[in-house]
């Protein structure tokens, strides 16, 4: 670059000089790939088991035969009408929540910045319950309300946190405050509702994938097919944002603008998932941190995080359906909540000890 200068040209690119770099990179990538492979295999096993186990159990050959289109009438009904839609919905919302959480936590550089902690999914719930109980809306309009609720809540947090730019911890603190507000609103709406309506509204308090139907799944999958490639395009910028705004800016990334774009994508993902299954607690919150701890290379680990999200959602739904005593079927959100709460305690206890709380 600085021509006409004695030592301006870097030392001749010998294979030798770059060898340690290439080796370090290869090891880093190999580690992440290996983890992705293991997680994918686990997810496959969980998926197969959740298709086979139930009141009417299928063997592995039964399942394979049915999936290949050779099943009996009852087998087809059980797999394609009951279990597969539910599994597919669980997988898709697992992906959406996990990616959403990973984006929030990365661009706000705070492990507490997750749509379920800062009131984004709570805003969706409150709006949906308002639509259901007060406005008497149908299911599609209620889902639209949920989506709008999440968007409005995030916009409000963003504007309240804005001070010539958005800083992670301020965004999180305001978000936690907003989360309490929407919880209060939810409680008020439910206490005024009559019993039958309140039962309907319960889905908006604790998420569940039990009501899965193919047309809804198709809509959700279509939205993700647009959003996820967008996230992929922005991933390079996200890697620079990991280094702090100043470094990102000096590397040519417009930090504030990139953060806003990534937040919009993150909210859209969380809002969509919530609109279809309600607030499945803590999946967004725990997936990326678990994945990053497993990978441990400072990588964004979006793919491992996605697979963790899928695993948690599918295992939680399977547990809620089959593993609890007394043939009691619970919404999956209760199980994810039971996993997430101890993690939150652990995070708060350890983060402050090493002085990275903010």
């Amino acid at each position, binding site marked *: 670059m600085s021509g006409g200068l004695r030592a301006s040209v870097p030392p001749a690119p010998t294979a030798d000089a770059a060898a340690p770099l290439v080796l370090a990179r290869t090891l880093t990538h190999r580690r992440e790939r290996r983890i992705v492979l293991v997680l994918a295999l686990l997810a496959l096993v969980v998926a197969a088991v959740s298709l086979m186990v139930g009141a009417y159990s299928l063997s592995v050959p039964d399942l394979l035969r049915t999936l290949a289109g050779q099943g009996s009438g009852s087998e087809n009904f059980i797999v394609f009408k009951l279990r597969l839609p539910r599994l597919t919905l669980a997988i898709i919302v697992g992906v959406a929540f996990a990616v959403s959480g990973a984006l929030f936590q990365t661009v706000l550089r705070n492990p507490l910045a997750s749509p379920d902690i800062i009131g984004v999914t709570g805003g969706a719930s409150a709006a949906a319950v308002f639509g259901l109980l007060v406005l008497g809306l149908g299911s599609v309009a209620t889902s639209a309300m949920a989506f709008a609720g999440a968007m409005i809540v995030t916009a409000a947090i963003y504007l309240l946190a804005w001070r010539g730019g958005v800083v992670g911890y301020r965004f999180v603190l305001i978000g936690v405050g907003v989360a309490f507000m929407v919880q209060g609103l939810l409680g008020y709406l439910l206490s005024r509702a009559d019993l039958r309506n309140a039962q309907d509204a319960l889905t908006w308090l604790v998420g569940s994938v039990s009501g899965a139907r193919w047309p809804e799944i198709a809509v959700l999958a279509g939205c993700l097919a647009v959003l996820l490639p967008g996230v992929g395009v922005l991933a390079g910028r996200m890697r620079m944002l990991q280094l702090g705004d*100043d470094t990102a800016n000096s590397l040519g990334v417009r930090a504030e603008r990139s953060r806003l774009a990534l937040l919009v994508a993150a909210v859209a993902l969380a809002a969509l998932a919530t609109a279809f299954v309600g607030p499945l607690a803590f999946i967004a919150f725990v997936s990326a941190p678990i994945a990053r701890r497993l990978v441990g290379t400072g990588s964004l680990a979006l793919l491992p995080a996605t697979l963790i999200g899928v695993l948690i959602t599918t295992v939680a739904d399977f547990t809620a359906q089959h593993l609890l005593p007394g043939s009691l079927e619970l919404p999956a959100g209760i199980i994810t909540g039971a996993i997430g709460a101890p993690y939150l305690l652990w995070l708060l206890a350890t983060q402050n000890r090493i002085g990275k709380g903010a």
Partner: protein
Amino acid sequence: MPQPTDQAADTAATNAAAAGPTAAAPGEPAASGRHELTATGLSLGYDGNRIVDALDLAIEPGAVTVIVGANASGKSTLLRGLARLLPPQAGAVTLDGRDITALPSRQVATIVGLLPQQPIAPEGIGVADLVGRGRYPHQGWFRHWSSTDDAIVAAAMAATDTLKLAPRRMEELSGGQRQRVWIAMALAQKPDLLLLDEPTTFLDVTHQVEVLDLLHELNHQQGTTVVMVLHDLNLAARYADRLVVMRQGRILAEGTPAEVLTEAVVLEAFGLRARIIADPVCGAPLVVPIGRFHRPA
């Protein structure tokens, strides 16, 4: 600007005499840097608070410029303004005569690099990965990682003596090693102008000298223009070609350390009574503070 060039040549000559045969020939560094970074009537601040006030400064290409001043004198703010991290409240920062905020951010990033005071390393990140991220502005939609990038990153790591750290993680390193890795990342960006905000803070004196020697070497061997904020006046005086002393958001004095560092300037900028003597190692001015309890002989 004939005068600054002469001064830089003088300084370079002094440095060459002091540093021995490895230093560049007199005049050569000043001729090398090509990009001109200039602040004109620049005012900077946060939330209507004015911290830097109508300041004019031309960074001399190919020289090492050190900005010093008391706390809250606006030196870090000025550096952030020069690196376009802070939009001007008034005035402008220009790069080769063009408003830096109007230029594409990535294009500026290939010319001007900044190492913030406390850069953030993602948890678990490896040294090679971190330094490689400095290549970001040179990559585009269709231009991905290549062997040229590898060669440049390897050269940056060799220059900072961090190549052997490549397989390690950032959190395993000492403060001095970590700072060298960050500088390697800034070098991988291949900027013609490198801005550093207190690159020696949190380092013990050995590592401070090590980092400043590295920047000196970089300036002399690659012709990189270096602009940095330093706390330590004596290290500033030793390593600077040009010294900028700030006081209350304005430039109090500017020139070679020998011209600028007088007892009067130190008193006015820092409110500190001091004696100035010649540094026995290189002849640069050495500030000896007086304080309340000791009387000069």
